[in-house]
């Protein structure tokens, strides 16, 4: 059944009118969740239309506009449909029910005789001349949601569960649909000069040379290490910023040290450590035990790398700040902009406008702060900040490197009698407001920045950061997880799709394959022997069947087939992936199959699109991606320095969604990333006869592994 406790979004925003209003011919649904490319606004529309019995085109979604929308934290963690969507479902069911009661009262008939079709009330199937819009004035929506109105049974769904075409795509195939495309007359263009490393001080900047390079008038706004170039002529501002990047001399602060991110570096950092034990505690029991197996895995730093560099607009007029941003958390951004700029939250309005896909904490919030700070110096003008590609690589929040050590003691049955995982990692979340810090990169560049408060990672009960998916999902009699949080890394480490999950899944699923090999068992059979729950078993069996896993065809020399499985966050969607690879000096993907169980699926095609996107991004993460450092700073300036997977590297991908409409919707957006990476790692290990445990799976890593004895 659909959730019977109130979703967080609804307890945070308990008033019905925060969610719903009736406008001429339309139902306005407000959401604090935002479109970041996953199609969630289409899914929200489906949920609302279904529960209200209106057509999808009778719903108008208002998303992420802080003067209207409910405050729903961040659009992240695959929570949008499962939490935000659940709130909309309950609100719509309740409003429908309240209005039905009103109609029954007016017509003096039992509610049971009434129904709704396209917003019209019918009595015994016949028109009553009343509809939502004529009845709405009779009720007051400024009341608390009870959350108790019965929701529709999934068996009666007509809109949910069907693939409604994405509402945002028509504008996107025509071109101009993004925050970048908002044209404002008389706009002030701005470009930033970013610090190359934490707390770097600008020792010198030849401002005359910068202005000369601009070839047209530009202003230089400098406050501490905050440096912006502004003007009416965008090209001049761009030239100024480019010149300044070359001319600026930096000193002090904390440059990234050599070797940053390597497993050795990670393990040498000061740590706050904790251990969580599950299952049997104390000494390993004295039943006959087999081998002790240990392996160390690692992942490097990654960047979110969306194709469109971030952009923001801001205007300060009559003591009110209006900000257009592709932030993932409009209400949080509003609150922290206010704090950082010395305003009251009610003076700030954040309007979400779509940007290029965000797969984690991107630079949208930084740009919003930059634009706001500049706008407050130029009341009445609209300021537009646009980052350069190079700024994105240099100063984006970074997805942290991790080291993961696994130890298992095998029992006589070759199953793990004891299991231990140790994770070394800086934190995975420093979005605005987290740990009580604004985390805007430029706020730290201003004079006398507020001292940074102690860093923590996302707590386990909210899915964990470094520990996300660190708890193996298999039936293990003893499980011990040690988390070494490294709070002192001189980088703004933050969220990228799945946080620590995909590296932990890479390690755990690789290690499971290692144990299967020792046990002399097929990897899928071995996994199934460690899973009693029928739900994950079905997902694994489906992927095995799709790929013909048990047909035992002999693959050609240099080819390998691998399996990977996880339940995202151990509470969200189940995804199993099979990958065929060919390896010589490089890894080539030949074919991919994925099976997923996400409970009730709102839009099957949208769900498949998400799984496929997760597969491709997961493959890119493990095969290609690594942020390198040089001279204390990020070494990547262009896409050549940070390659991602391309058209020619992507094979045919088969996806099957397991139909499970009576189970609650499970977050899916991030679910395929980990299992795909793991399946690739396992396929490469089979093709090579040796395992690559330190990511990414580049030509260098393959050669090193082959040469290592």
């Amino acid at each position: 059944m659909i959730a019977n406790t109130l979703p967080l979004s609804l307890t945070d925003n308990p008033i019905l009118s925060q969610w719903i209003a009736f406008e001429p011919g339309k139902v306005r649904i407000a959401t604090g969740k935002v479109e970041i490319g996953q199609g969630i606004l289409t899914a929200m529309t489906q949920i609302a239309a279904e529960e209200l019995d209106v057509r999808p085109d009778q719903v108008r979604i208002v998303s992420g506009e802080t003067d209207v929308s409910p405050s729903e934290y961040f659009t992240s963690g695959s929570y949008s449909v499962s939490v935000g969507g659940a709130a909309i479902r309950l609100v719509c069911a309740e409003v429908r029910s309240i209005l039905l009661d009103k109609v029954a009262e007016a017509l003096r008939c039992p509610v049971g005789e009434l129904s709704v079709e396209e917003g019209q009330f019918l009595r015994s199937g016949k028109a009553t001349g009343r509809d939502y819009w004529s009845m709405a004035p009779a009720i007051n929506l400024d009341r608390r949601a009870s959350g108790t109105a019965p929701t529709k049974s999934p068996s009666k769904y007509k809109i949910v569960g069907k693939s409604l075409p994405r509402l945002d795509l028509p504008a996107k195939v025509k071109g101009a649909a993004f925050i970048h495309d908002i044209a404002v007359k008389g706009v002030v263009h701005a470009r930033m000069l970013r610090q190359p490393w934490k707390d770097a001080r600008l020792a010198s900047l030849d401002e005359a040379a910068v202005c000369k390079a601009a070839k047209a008038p530009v202003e230089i706004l400098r406050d501490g290490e905050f440096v912006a170039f502004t003007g009416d002529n965008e090209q001049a501002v761009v030239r100024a910023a480019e010149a300044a990047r070359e001319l600026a001399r930096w000193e002090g602060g904390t440059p990234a040290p050599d070797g940053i991110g390597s497993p050795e570096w990670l393990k040498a950092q000061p740590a706050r450590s904790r251990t969580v034990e599950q299952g049997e505690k104390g000494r390993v029991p004295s039943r006959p035990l087999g081998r002790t197996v240990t392996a160390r895995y690692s992942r490097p730093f990654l960047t979110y790398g969306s194709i469109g560099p971030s952009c923001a607009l801001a205007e300060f007029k009559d003591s009110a700040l209006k900000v257009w941003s592709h932030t993932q958390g409009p209400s949080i951004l509003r609150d922290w902009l206010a704090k950082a700029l010395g305003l009251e939250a009610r003076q700030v309005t954040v309007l979400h406008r779509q940007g290029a896909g965000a797969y984690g904490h991107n630079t949208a919030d930084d740009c919003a702060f930059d634009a706001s700070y500049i706008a407050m110096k130029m009341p009445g003008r609209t300021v537009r900040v646009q980052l350069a590609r190079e700024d994105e690589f240099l100063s984006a929040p970074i997805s942290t490197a991790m080291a993961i050590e696994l130890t298992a003691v095998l029992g006589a049955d070759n199953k793990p009698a004891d299991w231990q995982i140790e994770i070394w990692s800086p934190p995975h979340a420093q979005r605005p407001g987290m740990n009580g810090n604004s985390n805007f990169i430029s706020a730290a560049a201003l004079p006398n920045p507020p001292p940074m408060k102690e860093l923590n990672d996302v707590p386990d009960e909210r899915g964990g950061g470094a520990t996300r998916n660190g708890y193996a999902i298999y039936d293990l009699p003893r499980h011990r997880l040690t988390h070494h949080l490294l709070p002192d890394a001189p980088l703004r480490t933050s969220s990228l799709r799945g946080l620590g999950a995909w590296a932990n899944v890479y390690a755990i699923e690789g290690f499971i394959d290692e144990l299967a090999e020792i046990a002399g068992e097929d990897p899928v059979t071995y996994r199934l022997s460690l899973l009693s729950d029928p739900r994950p078993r079905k997902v694994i069996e489906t992927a095995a069947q799709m790929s013909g896993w048990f047909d035992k065809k002999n693959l050609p020399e240099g080819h390998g087939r691998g399996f990977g499985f996880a339940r995202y966050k151990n509470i969200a969607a189940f995804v199993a992936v099979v990958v065929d690879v060919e390896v010589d000096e490089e890894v080539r993907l030949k074919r991919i199959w994925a099976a997923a169980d996400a409970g009730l699926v709102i839009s099957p095609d949208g769900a498949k699109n998400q799984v496929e996107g997760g597969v491709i991004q997961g493959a890119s993460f493990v095969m290609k991606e690594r942020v390198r450092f040089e001279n204390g700073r990020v070494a990547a300036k262009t896409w050549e320095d940070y390659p991602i997977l391309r058209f020619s590297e992507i094979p045919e991908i088969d996806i099957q969604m397991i139909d499970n409409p009576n189970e609650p919707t499970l977050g899916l957006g991030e679910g395929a990333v980990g299992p795909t990476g793991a399946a690739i790692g396992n396929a490469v290990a089979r093709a090579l006869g040796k395992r690559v445990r330190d990511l990414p799976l580049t030509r260098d890593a393959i050669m090193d592994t082959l040469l290592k004895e």
Partner: protein
Amino acid sequence: MSSVEFTVNGRSVRVEAEGGSPLLSVLRDELGLRGAKFGCGTEQCGSCMVLIDGEPAYSCTHEIGTLTGRAVTTIEGLSRDGALSPLQQAFLDEQAGQCGYCLSGILIAATALLKKKPKPSRADIVEALDPHLCRCGIHNRVVRAVQRVSGA
């Protein structure tokens, strides 16, 4: 500043611009055609792609001064009187998009391919689109959309 005359989406235009200005900024800021996107500024991602005399070209580096007398087509020029081109419609039919930021450039490159080769193989499509980066992972849907419109 110099005066440059060329055609954009079949319409003659004259712009006053510094000869070294990138075509992309002229299209977006002077002509109000904001479909072509800024992505990298270094010909590495394809989001700024337009057609110049029918050939795909990076508008982020193409200097406006070189365009006198030439014909530029942007994504806004693919639809006629508000009706989507068959290729744009095929992208909707395949739901070939997530965030959509790369679509403008990809649609341009695929349009050029289909003009040259109305029935491209999968390999042809992949080759034509390989200069384009997509971070969301819609690659296979894009290939299917191009195949759909070519009847392959």
